[in-house]
């Protein structure tokens, strides 16, 4: 037998390639997550930095956190805790109302997409993802133009002058939040066995009773998850809010942006860190709720 049954060289090479592959597989997420998280880590780190400059970390302090709550921000006069809290209240107000409206409408859209059959359903289904894919700036500008045109028409027809304000921000937030709610609720509905609704009907429940006693309890985790996602997106939104806001409607992200225009203070890092923690917390609950739905059925 001249030829070896097993080519030892090739086998060794194979093994080395495999080992390298495994190493890369292991490194790949590390690198990816590093790029994702490094800037945020820097931000969090420097919110605890003694020195005002971001050149070096000189020691741990909670000074900046206490400053933003105690109305002292060094020499900068633009900042006041009251203004910040006011902006935060505005954010909560806009977020709560936009979320409530978007959750109801988004859930209704998801239901008609999953259960109804009507012409153009597939097109509509695709359009649902539009706000997720089109650039935020495009959406912001289009909304700003839309409101301008609408207000001009109102002026023309009724002589009444309308200005942007909370109503425009809320409407703008509703438009992008509907999609997110609908997508999350729809995923939940897709998981749900449609024969459960037939079983309810079979047992004498009319469509109204079927919805409230069977469908709704089963999609509720999805609805809550969608609402939390919407609320978070609303709290975090800057671009769209910026283009649709009026006078006295400053939300927290817009407020932070205003601070940045003056100077980069460590207090901005502190506020940003708090905002990030809040958002992460809310999204965490939302994801947990969505995950629970998937594993149960």
């Amino acid at each position: 037998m001249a030829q070896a049954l097993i080519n030892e060289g090739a086998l060794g090479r194979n093994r080395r390639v495999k080992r390298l592959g495994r190493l890369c597989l292991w490194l790949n997420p590390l690198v990816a997550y590093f790029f994702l998280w490094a800037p945020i880590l820097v931000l969090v780190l420097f919110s605890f930095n003694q020195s005002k400059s971001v050149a070096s970390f000189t020691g741990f302090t909670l000074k900046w956190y206490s400053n933003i709550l105690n109305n002292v921000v060094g020499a900068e006069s633009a900042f006041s805790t009251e203004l910040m809290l006011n902006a935060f209240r505005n954010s909560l107000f806009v977020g709560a109302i936009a979320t409530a409206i978007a959750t109801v409408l988004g859930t209704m859209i998801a239901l008609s997409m999953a259960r109804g059959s009507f012409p153009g359903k597939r097109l509509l289904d695709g359009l649902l993802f539009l706000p997720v894919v089109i650039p935020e700036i495009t959406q912001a500008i289009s909304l700003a133009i839309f409101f301008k045109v609408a207000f001009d028409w109102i002026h023309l027809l009724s002589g009444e002058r309308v200005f942007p304000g909370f109503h425009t921000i809320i409407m703008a937030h509703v438009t992008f939040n509907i999609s997110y709610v609908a997508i999350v609720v729809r995923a939940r509905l897709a998981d749900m066995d449609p024969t459960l609704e037939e079983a309810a009907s079979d047992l004498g429940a009319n469509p109204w009773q079927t919805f409230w006693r069977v469908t709704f309890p089963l999609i509720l985790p999805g609805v809550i998850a969608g609402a939390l996602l919407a609320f978070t997106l609303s709290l975090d939104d800057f671009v769209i809010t910026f283009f649709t806001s009026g006078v006295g409607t400053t939300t927290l992200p817009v407020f932070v942006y205003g601070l940045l225009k003056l100077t980069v203070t460590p207090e901005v890092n502190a506020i940003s860190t708090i905002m990030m923690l809040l958002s992460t917390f809310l999204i965490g609950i939302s994801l947990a709720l969505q995950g629970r739905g998937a594993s149960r059925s």
Partner: protein
Amino acid sequence: MTAFDVELIDIVKDFDSGGGRVRAVDHVNVQIADGEFFALLGPSGCGKTTTLRLIAGFEQPSSGRVLIRGRAMEGIPAYHRPVNTVFQDYALFPHLTVEQNIMFGLQMEGVDKKEAQKRALESLEQVRLPGVGRRRPHQLSGGQQQRVALARALVKQPAVLLLDEPLGALDLKLRKNMQVELKALQRDVGITFIYVTHDQEEAITMADRIAVMNQGEMLQVGGPKEIYERPGTHFVADFIGETNFVDGTLVERDADGFGRVKLMNDAVIRAQLSHTLAASDGPVLVAIRPERITISPANAEPAERGTTSLPAKLVDSQYIGTDTRYILRIGETIELVARLQNLDDRPKAIFAVGQAVTVRWSDASTTVLDH
């Protein structure tokens, strides 16, 4: 008021599917009596579930009418029909306890909570599953869930109970036990059962009457014995039990329901004609059940009247536990299977493979079918 619980009058159901059209139910006519155990039997995709859904009200017929207790069901939604369904995958509400699942239907009728609770408990006892009321469906085994689904439907005391392959997901042993139990339960409560199954043995052992379906058509409706012994079509004879089909030519139709058929080896045999036989001559099939064929030594004494006797050769034999299957050949082309029960005191091998034998069967146990 008629004596029928369910009447299907010339029902057609078409589905649009991806441009084409599927006829799931094709001109079905059937009348189901009060208290009957009625089985819908057929291979997968033959339209059994669709038929059930038309009765339940989840589908509307493309044409034809559904009557329940003499009342036309047109325009009456599922939640107003006096029927209940045991779904194939049970469809228990996962967010409710077992007890709440069973109470659901009663509460929809406006029964107050105390009364509903009491009846749910009774119902659980009826299906022999007491003490699980507080549990969630997913905490029960498949067999237990099946009983809960049954209890949930029975507690409504419907005119008709529709069951879609209710035992399909259970293992063989449990299925056999449940068959006996379900049958006993049906006798007790006296509710009409319409029972969908693709298992011919299940249909034969449980049903008062069986409807055999294929490709949306109801081919034959009759008692288990009639369906088994007097199949009307090739499909029915083939689907139910094992059957020998022998090609032949009908040469004569007698007045007594018998005819003469010339087989491929030129032998002419007397055989019973199916009621539905259309052909008056020409090619036909003769169906003979394997257990109706007996084997005797070659050149045995002549057969008595009303019996067919043909020389054959034993080609093979297979031991299959309760029976032995013998593969026989008549002439060059006709192959037959005979089954003889393995009674314990019988010598192991009476006939050797390759041996010449005589096969016999009673003319009345044959059926001549259209080719």
